[in-house]
């Protein structure tokens, strides 16, 4: 197959149950270009790229490579054309090891003893890009960030000329993002094409040569990044001005809500994922946990919310012990939880929107009487969430699987936040959200804080942490390296702390 010089998508349209996800999209990319694809949730970015990758067939329109009409019927054909994709939701087999996953998608995998030949290449790659992945680990044992690295290796190993990245940076550390960008640059220099899906304006401006803005399935703007700026891009993207400043007033913190007393938790790998962590959380406070994905954040959140057992230490809420209580008992003490992998944990896909809107709340008095559920109340509640959180759907009586990822996310957030929890445990709450929804959510977290709730915020987005949090803990390898006030001068060293090379003995 000849190298891709140009790739064109002409008049591509695709609809799902009568709603256009893409309408008459024209997109042309040339060798040596990095093109950003920008748009809010449900704008049709992922759909368009899935068409290019052969996962969906367009209803109409044509794809051309090097001025020749082609058809891409499935991902295998797409790989043979030189197109690779790193998905937002990872397409890995959870029970297989890293190397098995890579061998599975690799063109040159020999029939016999595939691992031996692949191992060498994987290790080379790991070393070259500092991926630091044990090829024999099972995928389910890896953090989101590590899984993505596996996906990237897979695509690169197949020697794709055109690589599609669906929000690749959301789970990477600042350092890793830098490395990724330098890979992008190298590839660009060697004539590769990169299509970069994101709604982070900074990254688009930083990385891309050209940016194409999608809104409701249509292209609403296309420009070279050097001719534009963040503000005007944001305006094109959401069709209105967005303020980038949240005004956060200092509030004196109230009484103690949560106390975590030297807890240790086992991870999926059977090793300590959370090691002897202690902290306290107060009313009117947002407590941020900053750190690179896979350093114990998920386990800590799961331990507090009762999903994962704690083998030593104690957790108390309002003075009463909730260590190793059931998730429901813990929820009933006023702890809400926005989980990290929302699609996996947060919804029952085949049930209706309104069923999903009370997943954790259905047993509460206001939604159930004895054994029965009050469906009229539940439906009203769902309508409220949809309105408040701007979930776009044509009906609450449709199955939630029909919604786009971003909209599912908004519904879950709405569900967990609207109950006015005493403590909200939020893992990467803005991951995958568009600018408008992100701002809305951050304001909502601040208003929770104002109303006297405590928020435990896990995020890899340092900007978000700095913007929202009153105190910030830095987690590395299951331990807190420091707990800092938001005006602590040591904050400038948060990078080395996240990398584990610096530790404050304050606590």
């Amino acid at each position, binding site marked *: 197959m000849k190298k891709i010089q140009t790739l064109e998508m002409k008049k591509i349209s695709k609809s799902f149950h009568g709603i256009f996800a893409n309408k008459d999209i024209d997109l042309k990319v040339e060798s040596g270009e990095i093109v950003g694809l920008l748009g809010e949730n449900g704008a049709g970015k992922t759909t368009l790229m899935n068409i290019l990758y052969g996962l969906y067939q367009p209803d109409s329109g044509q794809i051309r490579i090097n001025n020749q009409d082609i058809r891409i019927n499935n991902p295998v054909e797409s790989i043979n054309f030189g197109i690779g994709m790193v998905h937002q939701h990872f397409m890995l087999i959870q029970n297989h090891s890293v190397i098995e996953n890579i061998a599975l998608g690799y063109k040159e995998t020999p029939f016999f003893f595939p691992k031996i030949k692949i191992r060498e290449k994987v290790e080379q790659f790991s070393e070259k890009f500092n991926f630091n992945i044990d090829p024999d680990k099972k995928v389910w044992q890896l953090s989101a960030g590590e899984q993505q690295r596996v996906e990237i290796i897979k695509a690169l190993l197949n020697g794709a000329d055109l690589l599609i990245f669906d929000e690749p940076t959301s789970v990477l550390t600042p350092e890793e993002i830098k490395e990724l960008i330098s890979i992008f640059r190298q590839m660009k220099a060697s004539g590769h094409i990169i299509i970069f899906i994101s709604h982070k304006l900074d990254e688009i401006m930083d990385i891309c040569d050209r940016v194409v803005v999608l809104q409701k399935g249509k292209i609403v703007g296309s420009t070279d990044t050097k001719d534009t700026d963040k503000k005007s891009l944001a305006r094109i993207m959401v069709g209105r001005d967005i303020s980038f400043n949240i005004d956060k007033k200092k509030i004196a913190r109230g009484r103690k809500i949560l106390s975590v007393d030297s807890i240790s938790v086992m991870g999926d790998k059977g090793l300590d994922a959370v090691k002897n962590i202690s902290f306290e959380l107060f009313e009117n406070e947002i407590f941020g946990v900053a750190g690179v994905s896979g350093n114990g954040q998920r386990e800590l959140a799961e331990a507090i919310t009762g999903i994962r057992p704690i083998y030593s230490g104690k957790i108390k809420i309002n003075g009463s012990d909730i260590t190793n209580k059931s998730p*429901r008992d813990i929820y009933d003490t006023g702890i809400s939880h926005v989980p990290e992998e929302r699609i996996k944990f947060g919804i029952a896909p085949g*049930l209706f929107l309104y069923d999903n809107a009370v997943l954790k709340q259905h047993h509460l008095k206001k939604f159930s009487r004895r054994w*029965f*559920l009050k469906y009229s109340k539940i439906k009203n509640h769902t309508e409220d969430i949809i309105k408040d959180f701007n979930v776009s759907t044509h009906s609450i009586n449709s199955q939630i699987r029909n919604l786009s990822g971003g909209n599912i996310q908004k519904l879950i957030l709405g569900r967990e936040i609207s109950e006015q929890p005493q403590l909200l445990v939020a893992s990467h709450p803005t991951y995958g959200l568009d600018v408008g929804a992100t701002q809305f959510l951050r304001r909502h977290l601040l208003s929770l804080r104002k109303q006297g709730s405590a928020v435990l915020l896990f995020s890899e987005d340092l900007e978000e942490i700095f913007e929202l949090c009153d105190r910030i803990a830095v987690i590395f390898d299951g331990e807190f390296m420091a707990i800092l006030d938001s005006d602590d001068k040591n904050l400038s060293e948060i990078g080395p702390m996240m990398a584990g090379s610096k530790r404050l003995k304050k606590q």
Partner: protein
Amino acid sequence: MIKIKTTDRYNITPLRSFMTNILSLAAALVVISILFLISGVNPIFAISEIFSGSFGSFYGIKETLTKAIPLILIGAGLTLAFRAKFWNIGAEGQLLMGAIFATWTGLNFGESLPPYIIVPLIFLAGFTGGAFWGIIPAILKIKFSINEVISTLMLNYICAEILTMLIVGPWKGKERFGFPGTNNLPDSAILGIIPGSRIHYATLILSILCAIVLCVVVYKTRFGYETRVVGENPHAGKYAGINFLKTSIIIMAVSGGFAGLAGVGEIAGIHHYLGYPASVSSGYGFTAIIVAWLAKLNPLYAVISGIFFAGILVGGDAIQISLGLPAATVQIVNGTLLIFLIMGDYFLKNKIRFEMQ
């Protein structure tokens, strides 16, 4: 070359769902017709014989209703288990265990108690027996991650052998004159029938009530909600704080318990004593799997699909006699129907397109 494309279908309307079922049944009939042709029988005649044998005469309707009773009960119970993606294929064993418990209760307490006490008591005993046999695989699955398909299937054989052991051994009755089987239940424990038929009406009414109640439970209650969540996404169930052990035990207690009730009906309504497993139940536990599937896992629809499949069983008997076809014919008919129903489900959930290349 022609390529086949499948995409998810989102707008599944009740009408479309209903029509898919009808078309699946029609397609199955075509295949069944071919099988009839191969055995040298006019398929139109054979199929019309099946339905006239079951629904075309007063006698046929009575027999159909008789056989519908266990199918409705078990089918309704299975919809609950299948909804939670608990693949209970052990209803046959649960039915037999219900029959064993009911027989023991009837034989031991029937003489001394009046009907209005002993009848509810044997139903309770039957439910308990079926539930007990159903709970075992639930515990095995949740506590030890043992696949329920294997465990429920195997427990069928274990229960059948326990039953055989009882009737040739300790429970062997004098009234049977040396043949295996227990004594007849005392009169007070025997269910009334509609005169001139074998319809034990108490169980018939019970089966419809059970289906209605279960329908309310599935769609209106917290437990039903939790069942559906667990079936759709167990991870979400865990996150939502649903107690898997408790939920699974209740689901299988109900599913097995309903099969146990069917066992009571067969013993106290029809046979009046406990005989060989194959005579207690002619595979109702397996046929009910198709009943549940045709009902689209809605307990209420299991009433209709239960009667439909009872009709096929009765009609199958009719053509065995009138056309001289082997006994396996009905099972082939049933199996073919199930396969087509499952395929229909696929076509309901996916859009299929053919494209020229």
